[in-house]
């Protein structure tokens, strides 16, 4: 018979939530903490692989990356950053409420955290849909297929402030564009019968060439026979959007998992499971949530803001 005898364990009172392999809550809490941090370390390395890919390609093709980045909507990106920051605050306050044994406060803060997390995902859905409509989803066939009709761009505001931008970047080279299309009205012609990735604006490459700051890879990568080849430029921009979708997509997946964890936590908090003696699951879930926030803190400037200074009369 497995006796529970333990020479150092005199009392037979088992605190709530103490698992059988641990001697006391302190050991359990410490184990949970180290365990969760080990998990976060491996998450750092997981995302780190993607950051490495980003680093390699951005250092090779910075102008293509800048061009692609400028087409992301920094407003939504910035809003999402603030949304996650608020959710981090409310999550931290949920942990604090659990530490103080305040059940109602815990529940409220967890709910608010979940709301903001959902808002984040909603904004991402808006962004992804916009990419779909604009023909800059990097996978062939996954863009909106249209015949030659006009459609409204949700991000026309961003486009109309771009300098040096005389041609609508989403026009395919073999499209006929109506003279009546203007940037100010936000109405544009968009012709993409097969739903491929469309990109025609290589102005940043020209700008960099004139300024003399193309990289070695760019000098080979954007040009054929000495001439700027927009299709080759497009391929590098497509790599940028690929990295954008994979990184933000993986991040969003982690958010969804986080929301699932929050739902479980909410139910347990509602049942009054957590108190000053046992709040470790809230704290550990909080660590995960903060980690997801930190990944976004880096994704936002690296993806959304990397080429903004070119838009405002910038360059080297």
């Amino acid at each position: 018979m497995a006796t529970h005898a333990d020479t150092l364990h005199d009392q037979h009172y088992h605190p709530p939530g103490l698992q059988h392999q641990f001697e006391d809550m302190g050991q359990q809490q410490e184990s949970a903490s180290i365990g969760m941090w080990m998990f976060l370390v491996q998450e750092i390395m997981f995302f780190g692989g993607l950051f490495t890919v980003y680093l390699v390609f951005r250092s090779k093709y910075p102008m293509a990356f800048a061009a692609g980045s400028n087409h992301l909507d920094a407003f939504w990106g910035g809003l999402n950053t603030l949304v996650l920051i608020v959710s981090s605050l409310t999550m931290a306050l949920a942990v604090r409420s659990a530490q103080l044994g305040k059940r109602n406060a815990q529940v409220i803060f967890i709910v608010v955290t979940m709301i903001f997390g959902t808002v984040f995902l909603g904004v991402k859905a808006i962004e992804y849909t916009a990419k779909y409509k604009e023909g800059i989803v990097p996978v062939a066939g996954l863009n909106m297929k249209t015949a030659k009709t006009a459609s409204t761009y949700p991000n026309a505001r961003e486009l109309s402030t771009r300098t040096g931008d005389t041609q609508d970047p989403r026009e395919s080279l073999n499209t006929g564009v109506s003279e009546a299309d203007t940037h100010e009205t936000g109405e544009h012609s968009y012709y993409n019968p097969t739903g491929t990735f469309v990109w025609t604006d290589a102005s940043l490459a020209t700008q960099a060439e004139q300024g003399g700051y193309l990289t070695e890879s760019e000098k080979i990568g954007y040009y054929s026979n000495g001439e700027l080849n927009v299709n080759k430029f497009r391929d590098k921009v497509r790599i940028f959007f690929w990295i954008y979708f994979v990184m933000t997509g993986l991040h969003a997946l982690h958010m969804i998992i986080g929301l699932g964890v929050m739902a479980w936590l909410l139910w347990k908090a509602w049942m009054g499971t957590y108190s000053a003696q046992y709040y470790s699951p809230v704290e550990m879930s909080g660590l995960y949530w903060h980690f997801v926030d930190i990944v976004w803190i880096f994704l936002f400037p690296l993806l959304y803001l990397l080429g903004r200074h070119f838009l405002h009369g910038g360059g080297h």
Partner: protein
Amino acid sequence: MQNAEAINVGNIKEEPKVSYLTNGFTIKSWLLTKDHKRIAILYLITVSAFFALGGTYASLIRLELLTPQSDLLQSATYNKTFTQHGIIMVFFFLIPSIPAILGNFLIPIMIGAKDLAFPKINLLSWYFYMAGGGLTLFALLQGGVDTGWTFYTPYSTTFSNSYVMAVGLGIFINGFSSILTGLNFIVTVHTMRAPGMTWFRLPLFVWAHYATSLVMILGTPVIAITILLLALERLAKIGIFDPAIGGDPILFQHLFWFYSHPAVYIMILPGMGVISELISNFSRKKIFGYEFIAFSSIAIAVFGFLVWGHHMFVSGQSIYAGLVFSFLTMVVAIPSAIKVFNWAATLYKGQISYDTPMLYALFFIGLFLIGGLTGLFLGSMGLTVHLTDTYFIVAHFHYVMVGGQVLAYLGGLHYWWSKITGKMYSEFWSKIAAIIIFVGFNLTFFPQFILGYLGMPRRYASYPPEFQVLNIFSTAGASILAIGLIIPLIYLTYSIFFGAKAPANPWLLPGLEWRTSSPPPTENFEETPIVTWEAYEFGEESGLDLEDARNKYKVTV
């Protein structure tokens, strides 16, 4: 093997009525167990099955290579055969073997704990292993994969018509098994040690697994993201690894080897931990240089992350990077050498007994020496240009992985067999098998060093006829090795049903695992042990009456 009358030493008062093996007989009590010992048995069965499958592929390879022509297997099939041999052996045998079986079973006992820190996560690890392995097996049955276990792009992303994504997904899932096991071990060693079990009283087996766990946690996620990128590339054809549109196939190799080089340290560090145990205990002498061996494990784990480019010297990576990686490759050999010197110093003036586990340990030292030194040859950039993609590489890694890790695994399995099963195996047959394995192994792989040096390339179904003689030696050796590996399967299985009942401490050793019954009860110890002796303490401080026991210790066959 020892006196049949168990000399009762230590704190064991009497045999407990229920051991972990008899504590429940239903399928559910095994498949939903939280007992680390039962999980280790689950791993033992499934890992052995994968080993047999990988070995079957190896037999096919060696049979094909008996003749210069590609007559037994077409080239396309041969490509699948060596790929699958590699994938199964690396991911489903070598990486889990010692940590998931011996580590899982022994670490809590060695530190005096009731279980690992997270028993349910431990079980989840096994299910991830089964899911990943199952998916990979399914893909193999559908037609398999032919890219080499290294999945190099652009072949794997663009041109291969085989089941790259399915196998990749299987390996991805299996990676979680590794990560969770490593996480569990690290937390356990930090927080679950019994009173008196300080860091420097830990058995070196535990230190080795701690270092291995660091590598598992830091490295495995990178192969996970690499496989994900590979799968996405197959689906979406963006071209991040395609030079035609500006991608870089070398990027894949960087990401792949960032994990896969430290992975080879996952594959050897636990074996080194076993060897430390075997050398010290079968010399009945405190290990020489305990701290050096302990820290060298950590050093190998850390430095192992800095050398991955030595797999890419001729790939197109910059020469400067190659220089840096080559230099660091020389540096990473130093901690391994420190271990070998310390083991040798332990043997010196020890009271050596040639039980089967000790035979495996001694063989390990010799074979690991050869494998490790040839690794240094390969790490120097001039030589590597000549030897890359030849059989020299194949021989090198088989010397360290089979001559090293597999022998350590077998040695450890025999050493702790009585603890795990409560039964004694036949010492006669085990010694025969060990010697057959040693002879067969060397006959298989030593000719491959020569073949590689002479220029025979690897991963080819056919070869120039002048290489045939050495290939015949190699295949003959493989046949002997196969027989040698089958024999333990027979006598170990036999021992489970018909073996003599094992005493708690058959060799009269001071380790904490020998102070509980064989097999242990579910809670490992009747009472929480309080450790007051140093590691490998063969003197009176260990609390065992070892002087007296040593007089009664006899070797019988």
